[in-house]
């Protein structure tokens, strides 16, 4: 049986190799080399860096939120496990900084009230058209799932934020369009959003451009995958459980199968017989071949 399994795995491997050939042979397109940095959320045990997420929220609020919405996040998420983990009080205070339209009240009027934990993040513009009009015809995308909506994910966002450069001499740029190394087509309508010291961190972290880019990218990855930590934890436990289970199931399977058919000795005997016959009659009179 182990022989069968071995063969099976070998074949599987061969097919896998075959399937990679087209990709290795024809992938002559240039690979984008993103700016390299280490992400704490990557890997099987990946978790978010809490203080980076908190700083990231600050960057979002002070730098991005003027144009970009994060409409699928609620203020309560800020206090939930696996996220920035602000205290409930802090999250309440954050929510209360925003005016939320509610209603209609008993008089049939809509009214404004301070935000609550259950409210969704308040959007800078009431609709896509308004934000497009306000931004010179370019819609600043909602950032709720941005990290999942771009090839390259976190690396792409981080690189883009640091990828503003002088355009090459022969590169034509219209007014209000900027050159970015990592934007597909290299043209971007967003002006360089961050620079050294554009925010002041209360925890004393040095607000370099790289640090700011990293913090806000962390925040955006969490925003698009708020359950990432429990996903990783559950994943690890599940895989370990499965591996143990597989070992036991394999052993019971072997035990069950041993009830059936010939023993190893019987098989050996049969092999020997065949071997003898084959070697004996190779090259001899075929008529005796029986």
């Amino acid at each position: 049986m182990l022989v069968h399994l071995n063969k099976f795995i070998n074949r599987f491997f061969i097919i896998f190799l075959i399937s990679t050939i087209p990709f290795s042979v024809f992938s002559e397109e240039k690979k984008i080399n993103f700016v390299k940095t280490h992400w704490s959320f990557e890997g099987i045990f990946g978790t978010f860096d809490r203080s980076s997420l908190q700083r990231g929220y600050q960057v979002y609020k002070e730098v991005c939120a003027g144009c970009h919405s994060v409409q699928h996040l609620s203020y309560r998420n800020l206090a939930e496990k696996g996220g920035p983990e602000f205290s409930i009080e802090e999250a309440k205070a954050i929510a209360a900084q925003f005016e939320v339209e509610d209603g209609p009240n008993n008089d049939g009027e809509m009214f404004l009230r301070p935000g609550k934990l259950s409210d969704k993040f308040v959007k800078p513009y009431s609709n896509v058209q308004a934000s497009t009009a306000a931004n010179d015809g370019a819609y600043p995308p909602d950032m709720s799932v941005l990290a999942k909506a771009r090839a390259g994910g976190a690396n792409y966002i981080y690189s883009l934020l640091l990828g503003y450069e002088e355009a090459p001499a022969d590169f034509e740029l219209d007014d209000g369009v900027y050159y970015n190394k990592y934007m597909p087509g290299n043209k971007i309508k967003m002006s360089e959003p961050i620079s050294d010291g554009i925010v002041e961190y209360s925890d004393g972290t040095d607000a370099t451009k790289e640090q700011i880019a990293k913090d806000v990218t962390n925040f955006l990855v969490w925003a698009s995958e708020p359950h990432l930590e429990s996903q990783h934890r559950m994943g690890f436990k599940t895989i370990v459980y499965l591996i143990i289970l597989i070992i036991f199931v394999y052993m019971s399977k072997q035990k069950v199968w041993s009830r059936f058919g010939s023993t190893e000795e019987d098989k050996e005997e049969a092999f020997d017989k065949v071997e003898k016959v084959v070697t004996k009659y190779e090259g001899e009179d075929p008529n005796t071949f029986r």
Partner: protein
Amino acid sequence: MSETKYIPKSKLAQWFDSRLPLLTLSHHLKEYPTPKNLNYWWTFGGILTFCLITQIVTGLVLAMHYVAHVDHAFESIEHIMRNVNYGWLIRYVHANGASMFFLAVYIHIFRSLFYGSYKSPREVIWIIGLLIYILMMATAFMGYVLPWGQMSFWGATVITNLFSAIPLVGESITTWLWGGYSVANPTLNRFYSLHYLLPFLIFGLVVLHIWALHVPGNNNPVGIDVKKNSNETMPFHPYMVMKDIFALLLFITIFLWFVFFAPNVLGHPDNYIEANPLVTPAHIVPEWYLLPFYAILRAIPSKLGGVIFMFAAIFILMLLPWLDTCKVRSANFRPIYKKFFWILVFVVILLGYLGAKPPEGIYLTLSRLATAYYFIHFLILLPFLGRYEKTDPLPNSISDPVLDKPGMLDKFKKAAAKYEGENVSSFK
């Protein structure tokens, strides 16, 4: 089928079984004789059943939270991902489950091609299997539309537009499919309805597929008939059940690795951008499992021609039992077919790769060559091989000891080839 008639032990059970033979059925399933030499490629039937049930169960839960409306679909998916308890798990299992389902079905189909499982007397099993495969593609395609992301919308637009290539009635058919003049809310609603219905049709066909299988019994790696109820077969339970569970657990481990650690690698990032009829994505690509057919579609210079060839590529498989006239089933005894089988595997994977690339330059040339080869394989090579290929001598039975040891079979083939014409089919 077991030859002896099954009679339940207790009086009550006999009373019930004579009115509805459920106990006889379960006895049959338990005792169903399977060839003892089945290898691990044969475990994918059970794995596929698991995949179908997983998709139905997770789909049921998702349907409780999903809103099929163009204004709310994308948002409701995010609601599932964020606010529904373990919603992210259920959705990722469902989304990756579709990919795993297709991975397993492709292995299952190529297993059948290698070991000639579609040949007499198993043609009906094969055709029902293909119907299941076609329904699977339809279901997966409509399911991919439901999140209402950019690829959902534009994929739906491209695929439904194919029907407009039909002369005279094409435009009307497309309008009828859309329920309007473009892919819009009525389209999303009917896709949702059908996406919920089709899996149950698949389930029905799976029952027929297994029923049809249980009439002649399993094919096996040697490809010769086994003597039922001899020492060449073993009862399905517990032997095959244990083996299938073991293989299934290995499969589930790979499956869940994707779910927990790379849930989005098999999808397209653009589908996390809400559908926008005014913005066309740079490259519209279907999910990976449909790419080979997409490549064939685009390889043909005319739209109608592309559509015809794409559907022909699927339906040609229905004729396979009659295109492949060779009586020997297993490729292990067909040295030339075996080589062409691997070339076909390579060509199909190549087509899949080309389907993900823009249809221009070298990619287009290769797509055309690969498409041509795909049809040549089935329409020319197989009938030709059936006629002229010199197959290796077959062992007398699957318990022939020459089959038990690696290397022994080759010696047997060599010796047998030497004394061809003599009765050397077995070294008893």
